[in-house]
């Protein structure tokens, strides 16, 4: 093996090794979501009633604070519009899995009233799957459909409750 090849291998392996080391450090630094304390829940319950903007046609947007209140006061049904692997990994407790692409098959699970407050979410603000699912729900006659602004990312970042089918995160 000549010097050039050895140097090539050395640089490649060093780069991968350095990336892995930084990756391990990053993984350790990843924010772990925590359960809200009972005091938090009491405080949320003591807040004023949920006032969401009315939806004339189509669906509306709901901010994290309102969604959290709706969650802890059990006023809303949450729908997870992401693929099943993402849903399994972490979702808002009790959220119904309804991946936008498989909407026609999965909508049979929706047994609640068309007047029920529904909050749809996907991963982030930019993710379009929640909007797609919300659009389909509205077309199916659901009248109070909202999309969670910031998605589950913001929910987790603000220490919203999460449920996972996996032990590791």
């Amino acid at each position: 093996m000549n010097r050039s090849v050895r140097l090539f291998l050395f640089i490649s392996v060093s780069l991968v090794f350095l990336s892995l080391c930084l990756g391990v450090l990053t993984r350790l630094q990843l924010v772990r979501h925590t359960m809200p304390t009972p005091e938090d829940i009491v405080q949320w319950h003591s807040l004023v009633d949920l006032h969401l903007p009315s939806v004339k046609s189509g669906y509306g947007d709901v901010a994290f604070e309102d969604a959290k209140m709706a969650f802890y006061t059990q006023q809303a049904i949450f729908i997870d519009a992401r693929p099943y692997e993402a849903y399994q990994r972490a979702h808002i407790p009790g959220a119904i899995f309804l991946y936008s692409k498989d909407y026609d098959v999965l909508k049979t699970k929706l047994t609640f009233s068309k007047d029920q407050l529904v909050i749809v979410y996907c991963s982030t603000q930019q993710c379009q799957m929640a909007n797609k699912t919300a659009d389909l729900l509205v077309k199916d006659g659901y009248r109070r459909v909202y999309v969670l602004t910031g998605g589950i990312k913001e929910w987790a970042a603000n220490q919203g409750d999460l449920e996972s089918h996996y032990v590791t995160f």
Partner: protein
Amino acid sequence: MLHFNSRVMSFICDALTVALGLMWVYAGSMKLTDLWGLMDSLLQYNLLPVSWVTMAASTLPWMELLIGAGLIMGVLPYLKRVSENRIFLLTMSWMSMTLLTVFFVAMYSVMWRGLEVTCGCFGAGAQFVGWVTIGRDFGLILLNSVLLWRLKV
């Protein structure tokens, strides 16, 4: 007619190397600022075991950043005079090519399986994997091939 070894072509290749490096730095930093989104995208691709996703999402942005920084450093006038610089730049270009090829295969497999997946190419954007993202990746592979060919001349 311009020869590939001419000064102008050398300058163009250096500029393209810097552009590719900046692209990697941008992609890596965008991913690093949105690891949750990246993890979500990786899960949607459904190519890695779930237990590997967090580690992959933590490592990939750093790898991109290092490759980008390496490509940019490789064309710095001072470092160009170092005799090992060509091997260094060649290694970085091969690493870049490997990553681009992996992304190309991953995106093509998504299209082939008929999945609707957010690309996650430059952080968690709204862009879904499609012919546009595959075409963009293919363009970058072509660019990278030109740079590799240039380094071997």
